[in-house]
C-alpha cells in the first residue's frame, strides 16, 4: 500500500476511535489488477469495514490522477448513504504526482485540505478542522463536510494489523467493479515517452579532519559569511 494511503486508512480508523458511532462506515477503494485486492485486505485488517476493488487488467498502463479522480467521483456518487470524508495520501511514491485529492475535490466541488498533519472532525457541526504542512510552516483550515483530505507524513503512524484482525478481514465484503461498470475511461491522456536514470552523482570524497574539510570549502570558493 502506498505509505501515504496507509496513513489515510489509519486516520480513518483513529477517527472512529475518537468519534465512535458518529463514524458509520469506513470503506476503502483501490483501482488495480487482480492482486491489488491484497492491499484492500490490509486496509480491512487495519480496521476498515468494507472495500471496493475497481479491477483493471494486469499490465494495463499506469493510471493518471485525473482517471483515478473520475473513478472515485463515480464511486462516491454511488454510495447510497452518502460520503462525508474522502481521505487519501498526498502523493503516490511512484509517480510523485500529488494531484488526485485536489482533482477529486474539484470534480465534486468539495472542500479540500491537502498535506494534513492533524485532522479534527466535529461530527455534529459537520466540520473538519485541519492543520496542513505548507512551505513556510503550518496552516489551519476549517472545512465544511463533505471534504477531501490528503495526508502528510506526520499525521499519524499506521498500526500493524494484529493476527485476529487479519483473520476477521478475510470475511469483510469486497465489492468489485470494472471501469466499464462505472462508465469511466482510464486511458492515459499524457504520453510517457521514456524513463531514464538521472545522471549519477559521484561522491565518496573523503577528508581526514576539519582542517582538510575547511580547505576543500575554500577551494570551492566557500568562505565564512556572517548572516
Amino acid at each position, binding site marked *: 500500500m502506498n505509505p501515504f494511503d496507509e496513513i489515510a486508512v489509519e486516520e480513518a480508523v483513529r477517527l472512529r476511535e475518537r468519534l465512535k458511532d458518529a463514524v458509520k462506515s469506513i470503506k476503502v477503494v483501490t483501482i488495480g489488477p487482480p492482486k491489488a485486492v491484497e492491499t484492500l485486505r490490509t486496509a480491512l485488517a487495519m480496521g476498515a469495514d468494507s472495500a471496493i476493488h475497481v479491477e483493471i487488467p494486469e499490465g494495463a498502463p499506469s493510471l493518471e490522477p*485525473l482517471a483515478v479522480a473520475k473513478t472515485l467521483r463515480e464511486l462516491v456518487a454511488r454510495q447510497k448513504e452518502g460520503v462525508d470524508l474522502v481521505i487519501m495520501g498526498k502523493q503516490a511514491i511512484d509517480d510523485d504526482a*500529488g494531484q488526485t485529492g485536489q482533482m477529486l475535490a474539484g470534480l465534486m466541488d468539495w472542500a479540500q485540505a491537502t498535506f494534513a498533519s492533524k485532522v479534527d472532525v466535529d461530527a455534529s457541526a459537520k466540520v473538519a478542522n485541519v492543520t496542513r504542512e505548507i512551505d*513556510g510552516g503550518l496552516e489551519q483550515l476549517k472545512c465544511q463536510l463533505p471534504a477531501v483530505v490528503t495526508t502528510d507524513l506526520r499525521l499519524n503512524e499506521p498500526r500493524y494489523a494484529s493476527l485476529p484482525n487479519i483473520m476477521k478481514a478475510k470475511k469483510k465484503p469486497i465489492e468489485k467493479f470494472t471501469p466499464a461498470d462505472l462508465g469511466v475511461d482510464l486511458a492515459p491522456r499524457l504520453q510517457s515517452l521514456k524513463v531514464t536514470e538521472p545522471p549519477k552523482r559521484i561522491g565518496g*570524497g573523503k577528508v581526514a579532519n576539519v582542517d582538510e574539510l575547511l580547505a576543500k570549502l575554500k577551494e570551492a570558493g566557500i568562505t565564512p559569511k556572517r548572516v
Partner: protein
Amino acid sequence: MLRAAVLARSFARGYATAASPHALVFLEHCKGKLDSSSLSALTAASQLGGRVSGLIVGAPGDLPAVLEQAKKVTGLDTVLHSASPQYSTPLPETVTPLFVKLLSTQSPFTHVVSAHSSSAKSILPRVAAKLDLPAVSDITSVQHDSSSNSTTFTRPIYAGNAISTVRASDSIPIKFFTVRSTAFSAATLGGAEAKIESVDPVHVPNPPTEHVSTSLTKSDRPDLGVASRVVSGGRALKNAETFKATLFPLADALGAAVGASRAAVDAGYADNSLQVGQTGKVVAPELYMAIGISGAIQHLAGMKDSKLIVAINKDPDAPIFQVADVGLVADLYEAVPEMVEKLK
C-alpha cells in the same frame, strides 16, 4: 541553474500556421514581493517560446507593491491582477473559479504554469480537473514543439531515482504544469514594462473552506527554498536544543539556511518547514552540509542536485558518503564546534 533556452522556430507553412503558445503563470507573493519560485516558473514558461502572461491575486491592499515589481519582470507580456478580500489567503476553493473564468472558451491561453509550491500545487490540479484536463507536476525541463502543438516535459519519479519524459500532445488544449524551482533560474527584473490588466474577481458565496490561521517559522536566516548554502541536521542531533546549539552557529558562520532530515523533524528537533527530502523541500544550493544525516534515498531526493555536498557522520558506511563530495567520518559534536571556531 541556468538552462539554455532553445527556441525552435518552425517554418510557417502557407496553409497552416502553428499557434504560438501563450502561457498563464500564477505568480505568488508574500509581503509585497513576488516569490522566487514563481519567478522560476516564469523562466520555464518563457522556454515554451511564446507569450507569457502573469496572474496575481490578493487582497486589494496587497497588490500595488507586487504589481510594481511584476511589471518589470523580464519576459512578462501582461500582468493580470484580481483583487478581493477572498484572495487575501488564496484558497483553492476561492481562486479556482477565477482560473476557470480566465480559461473558458475563447481563452487565449495554451499553458497554465505555477511553482510546485504547497499553495499552487493545491490549486492547479483542482482547476485542471474542472476543465477535464491532466496536469504535470514538478517538471525539471520543458520543450514545446509548435508544429505539432505538443509540449514535452521531464520530471522526477520514484523520489528522483528515475526521470520520466512525458508529452502532452495536441489533444490537450490547455497544458497545466507545476515547476521545480531548483531546475530553472528565477526571471530577473529590468527590461520593458509589461501591460497591466485588471480582472474582476469571481466571488464565491459561502466557500466550504475557511482559512483560520497560518503560523510560519520565524527566522532571520536565509529561506531554505532559495538559500545558496544549507546546513542540515539529522537524527544524531539528539533533541531540539542540541540541534539548535550545534547547527545554528555553523549556519551563522556560513550565512546558511538550516535544514533537517525527516528523522529529525519527526523526532521534534526541527520544524516541518525545514524538512529536506522527497516529501519535504527539494533544494539545490551551492553548498549542502549534511550533519549527522545517514543519507536515506528519500533525503537524497531533496538535495542531490546541490553543487557541493559535504557530510559529517560518525558511521563510515552511511550512504550519505556515496554522494558527498567531501566526507568527514568524525563525531559531529567535535567536528562542528571545531569548524565554527576555525571559521571565525
